């Protein structure tokens, strides 16, 4: 974990004023980063917004890391107007990251909206993966598909308005998929997205006795485990999303 001033290589608008992909040059963080970890960054050095904002590491290319983010408020709005060559104050990599599957498991990735960000990075470290499920409100919220090409796997898509793939929720896709996976191998699901989706994914996983890792979001203050601000209720008491997570075994969480 370190605090660096990272140069912006690119801050690309993927969908006007909505989704952006930011590339930062930061060799030490790029070297240490593991899938599921995040960076905590200051969108500017003013007092507004006051706090840092956390973003999953979306991918790593040599000395650079990328994040994929959605403009949801003032902080991400300001971030989206930062320009190439400017410096950003970044702390990272933070959090535990995904526990990589052993080879004898079938891996399913389930992404909702910008939640796809961390699963892209995870996919770079996977040997194989029978299915990637991506859901969003409409086709414009379906991101990062190209990053999974390497896996040569089937990508299934759902949108709430039916504008792409199956009309409905990404958990509907999961619901359909699991019974079809007649396989002696254990199944492990990695899920990242809105809380509701994760909760539903956890339920489905439990029903099918699949192992399920979820990447949770909570309001992050320090990001390093010091302030206890990001507590999430688990069967072993409160845990810190930023340090004990953000990735948890779904069975541990009290949903």
């Amino acid at each position, binding site marked *: *974990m*370190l*605090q660096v001033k990272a140069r912006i290589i690119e801050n690309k608008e993927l969908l006007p004023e909505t989704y952006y992909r930011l590339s930062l040059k930061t060799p030490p963080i790029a070297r240490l980063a593991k899938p599921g970890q995040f960076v905590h960054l*200051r969108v500017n050095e003013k*007092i*507004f*917004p*006051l*706090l*840092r904002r956390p973003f999953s590491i979306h991918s790593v290319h040599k000395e650079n890391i990328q994040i994929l983010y959605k403009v949801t408020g003032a902080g991400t709005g300001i971030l989206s107007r930062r320009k190439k060559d400017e410096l950003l*104050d970044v*702390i990272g990599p933070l959090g535990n990251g995904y526990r990589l599957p052993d080879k004898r498991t079938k891996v399913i990735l389930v992404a909702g909206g910008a939640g796809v960000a961390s699963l892209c990075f995870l996919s770079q470290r996977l040997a194989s993966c029978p299915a990637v499920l991506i859901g969003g409100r409409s086709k414009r919220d379906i991101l990062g598909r190209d990053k999974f090409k390497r896996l040569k796997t089937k990508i299934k898509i759902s949108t709430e308005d039916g504008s792409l793939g199956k009309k409905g929720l990404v958990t509907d896709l999961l619901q359909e998929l699991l019974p079809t996976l007649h396989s002696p191998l254990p199944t492990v699901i990695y899920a990242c997205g809105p809380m509701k989706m994760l909760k539903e994914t956890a339920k489905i996983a439990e029903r099918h006795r699949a192992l399920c890792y979820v990447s949770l979001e*909570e*309001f992050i*203050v*320090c*990001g*390093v*485990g*010091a*302030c*206890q*601000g*990001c*507590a*999430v*209720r688990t069967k072993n*008491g*409160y845990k810190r999303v930023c*340090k004990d997570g953000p990735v948890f075994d779904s069975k541990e969480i009290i949903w």
Partner: protein
Amino acid sequence: MKKINLKTNLGRISLKNPIVLASGCFGYGDEYKDLISLDDVGAVVTKTITLKPKAGNPPPRVVETASGILNSIGLANVGAEVFLKEKLPGLLKKFSTPVIVSIAGETRDEYLKLISLLNRKKIAGIELNISCPNVGKDLTIGQDEVETFGLVKAVRKKTNLPLLVKLSPNVTDIGKIAKSAEKAGADILSLVNTFSAIGIDAETGRAKLGGVLGGLSGPAIKPIALRMVWQVRKTTSLPIIGMGGIANTSDALEFIITGANAIGLGSAIFINPDLCREIIAGLKRYLSRKRIYNLDKLVGSLIV
């Protein structure tokens, strides 16, 4: 260039520079070890511990406000036993920086038990967090002169370690509370703790924090905190650790000029762990530019 002297004394505790990491904002030291070199700061105050471990308040525990942080961590902590066994030894062994241990009890007896556990430790001092609900229904010890006097007096009898009292800003006259603490034998005053506050979610019609009430910290409160340091400086001659919204060198100077012998960094650490280094460098530049050289000369130098 003439040598700049940042040394400052908090009674018997001498600090190599005036920067104190405030309680609750750097955990027990290990969490920030990669980002802040504890050897660089003047002193650290550990997260308030209680006799028994505390799980803390239900989430959400923090919301961001206009230039502020509203938190209801609820004193989540590992409890005295784990702290003494697993956390404190590392802190004392690895760093030369004075370690002040913050404690809170639900009864006077709990405070005294904690004191007896700490008395033989090689710590630089004990800070009494007196902002825990205790007196009557809604008030805390630190909001009442008599209760403050009583607790500090009782604790004073039981320890020879430097005794810090952390004052609550939620009072009519902080000078009076400071005076009670002084009379009862406090060695050092820390101020301010967080301001009692609440966040409301208009969409849901509910409080934003799981614990409903929270404490406000950060730049938003700085002007009020500064006023309180000023008030306390005028009523007592005890050393003061001033804090509340300090986020840069100028803020630190403002507290020192107003009367703080050392300054506490809380919320700003979350925003910029590198701030300790930045402020140390900034203070040096200021003292050299103003040809003052000794930080000590600045303390309470406010011209009115």
